[in-house]
């Protein structure tokens, strides 16, 4: 049953990310013209609840998704099993979540 939950979590997070990735790619292509600068990015994001929600959701979904994805790779390619595998998977997930949320906080919040 572990696998079923993981499978669903990964597919659901993928579905959540799908539109987010599209928007993100679009914005990047638009924004990147003439180089990226902090001003530009921060002007757009700072204080915006919308962007905060957007990137927050993105980060959560990506953390779940990537952690499960890496779990599969670790198990299949490095033959990790059992506690080590789940432990590592949780660790990766939380690390990504923490780093991601911190980054979101940085670009949305702050001065």
């Amino acid at each position: 049953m572990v696998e079923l939950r993981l499978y669903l979590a990964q597919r659901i997070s993928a579905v959540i990310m799908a539109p987010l990735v599209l928007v993100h790619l679009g914005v990047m292509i638009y924004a990147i013209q003439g180089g990226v600068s902090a001003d530009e990015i921060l002007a757009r994001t700072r204080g915006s609840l919308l962007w905060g929600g957007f990137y927050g959701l993105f980060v959560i979904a990506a953390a779940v998704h990537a952690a499960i994805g890496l779990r599969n790779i670790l198990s299949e390619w490095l033959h990790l099993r059992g506690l080590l595998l789940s432990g590592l998977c949780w660790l990766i997930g939380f690390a990504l979540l923490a780093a991601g949320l911190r980054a979101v906080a940085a670009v949305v919040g702050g001065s």
Partner: protein
Amino acid sequence: MQVSDHIQVKVWRGDASGGSFAEFEVPQQPAQTVLDVVTWIQRHADSSLSYRFACRVGMCGSCAMMVNGIPRWTCRTHVNKVLQDNHLTIEPLRNLPVIKDLACDMSEFFDKWKRAEGQFSGTQTRAQAVAAISPGEPARRAANAAIECINCAICYAACDVVNWNPDYLGPAALNRAWSLQNDSRDRRHGERLQAVSADGGCLSCHSQQGCASYCPNELNPTASIAGLKKMAAGAFMKKKYRDRHG
């Protein structure tokens, strides 16, 4: 179109403890399958070579081997189709333990078939008439599309997930389970769905599709497994919903 009158054949010799290749020169014939090549070697060059076959017409699935790295039914693979620069390399089927030379132990393949609840359980008995089921019913069509499996384990050898995850049931067993899930006469759909949704079941498949590419009967285990995944996910969501809303 005789290219040369002999072909160069490398055959894996050995057993569970290891082995190596032996080389043979085999006279080429206009009508010659890979199984004929192996047979020639066993009859004329090295009578101690071990291999397995039975029906010789693609019905029993006993003769599968790796031919130039690809799993194939050797009794129905013409040499011309696979010859590369006049060379053939023949090895035992991948992903199964070798018994000797080209014969491997298929027990785990069939154990997994059983683990996937790959057998029918009906509600009717022999005293009753055969169920009236139209061949056009969608479920029957799905069951039928997956039915003509000869348990040759070619798909099992083609799948890397089988290689990476010893628990994985593999394409053939799952394909059979899918066929049964679509059989309206079967009464163990629930138990079977549990069995194939458990760890090592259909959700371990990464859609590599080697199974479907190499299945000699042109079956499509990938499609069957996708069907099971959807069934498994659907059943899980439904149960969650029911648990929450009574």
